[in-house]
């Protein structure tokens, strides 16, 4: 394996330019899973950015939170400001792995790894985060919700490095992060949804429900238009329009869709006056 260890962003972007296909490594919590037996992974070139001190920060200003590429989940969990201004991120961070992962895993890595199950990405996307991509020739900022093109395909080109993530500090009127996994802690998400509402505008972002973490246009429309909702079933059509989850080793498509509908209904019913509250009959949640 080749490893490149720059100590500045400038060096890093130059090396990325020189080494086509080099894989950026920060906390390495995804890259090193089953490392000894993952022989193909040893053949590659890695760009280890973990020593670039100018990337190891996060900062709150009046209008935004900026997460440097080396900012970890734990950095946010541990910051009282984050709890105050971006609780959604804290809630999501706490569901990622366990403490041992939270201290190493980075928000930027979660974005770059492009797993459809990424919890951190869902929360960031719900808060309308922007991603800064830097190459040797300059920087570019793109909305996170346009970052993913397809399964494991992103708008980040081989010579670009995610240098920071910008989260606008527009305090949502309602925000919620729900993760459904196979156990209470340390689980890969089976159904995940991050919800944020600002000025009657809903952002619904799901993970593990599609090839990429994505916003759900039909569900957002259903909410923005204040279409009456009487039961979880009333989300079914929008879910079908937005998402095509799969059966895999961790769950089934039908479970994922049903749970998403139920979670959306129960999360939103208390704060959406146009929902009728009798969606749950004694004879079952989905009748």
């Amino acid at each position, binding site marked *: *394996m*080749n*490893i*490149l*260890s*720059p*100590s*500045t962003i400038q*060096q890093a972007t130059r*090396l990325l330019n020189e080494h086509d296909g080099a894989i950026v*490594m920060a*906390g*390495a*919590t995804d890259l*090193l*899973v*089953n*490392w*000894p*037996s993952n022989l193909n992974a*040893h053949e590659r*070139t890695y760009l*280890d950015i*973990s*020593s670039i001190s100018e990337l190891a920060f996060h900062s709150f200003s009046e209008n935004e939170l900026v997460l440097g590429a080396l900012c970890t989940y*734990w950095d946010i*969990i*541990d910051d009282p400001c984050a*709890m105050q201004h971006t609780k959604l991120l804290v809630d999501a961070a*706490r569901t990622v*792995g*366990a*403490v*041992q*992962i939270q*201290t*190493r895993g980075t928000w930027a890595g979660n974005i770059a790894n492009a797993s459809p199950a990424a919890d951190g990405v869902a929360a960031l996307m719900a808060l309308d985060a922007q991603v800064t991509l830097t190459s040797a020739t300059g920087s570019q900022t793109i909305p996170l919700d346009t970052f993913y093109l397809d399964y494991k395909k992103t708008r980040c080109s081989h010579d670009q490095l995610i240098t920071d993530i910008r989260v606008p500090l527009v305090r949502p009127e309602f925000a919620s992060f729900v993760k459904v996994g196979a156990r*209470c*802690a*340390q689980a890969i998400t089976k159904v995940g949804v991050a919800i944020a509402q600002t000025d009657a505008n809903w952002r619904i972002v799901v993970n593990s429900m599609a090839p990429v973490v994505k916003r759900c246009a039909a569900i957002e429309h259903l909410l923005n238009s204040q279409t009456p909702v009487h039961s979880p079933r009333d989300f079914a059509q929008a879910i079908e329009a937005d998402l095509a989850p799969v059966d895999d080793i961790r769950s089934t498509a039908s479970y994922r869709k049903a749970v998403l509908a139920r979670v959306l209904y129960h999360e939103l019913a208390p704060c959406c006056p146009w929902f009728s509250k009798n969606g749950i009959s004694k004879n079952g949640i989905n009748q």
Partner: protein
Amino acid sequence: MSTNTCTNPITISLTLNSKPLSIAVDPAERLLDTLRYQLGLTGTKEGCAEGECGACTVLIDDQPANACLVLTCQLAGRFVRTIESINVDTLHHMHEQGTTQCGACTPGVVMCAQWINEHQDVLKHQSLRQLMSGNLCRCTGYDGIILGIEKTLNETNPATAHKDPR
């Protein structure tokens, strides 16, 4: 900047268990393997090699991390602590309360407990059970672990006496 472009060993310097250490490692070598097979520090165990079980928990710059998910060459200038750094006198409550049975998860449990003990503020927002969820144990059902750590925490800091709500 060092740009190693082959699998030649990289020499790095770090602080291990309060002592400076310079070591040549293959860039692909995990911290877990350096500790166990190069340095003979076999207290850190491999349970899963995928960051699930926490048996290889060490402290890097005073934070718990899985040594199976860190390349040693990433640790230049860092402070690493392993189970071998733990003072045996701090373990009597865990000994008493049945924190260890087969012992394979135990060093990881002790290291995570050590971190919690040194940073008791982390218990303000998360329960001890949540904080210990990165350490899988198949023997104790976790009661012996939770009780042993609680007693240890209370001894260190009786003012904020901690009790598992369950």
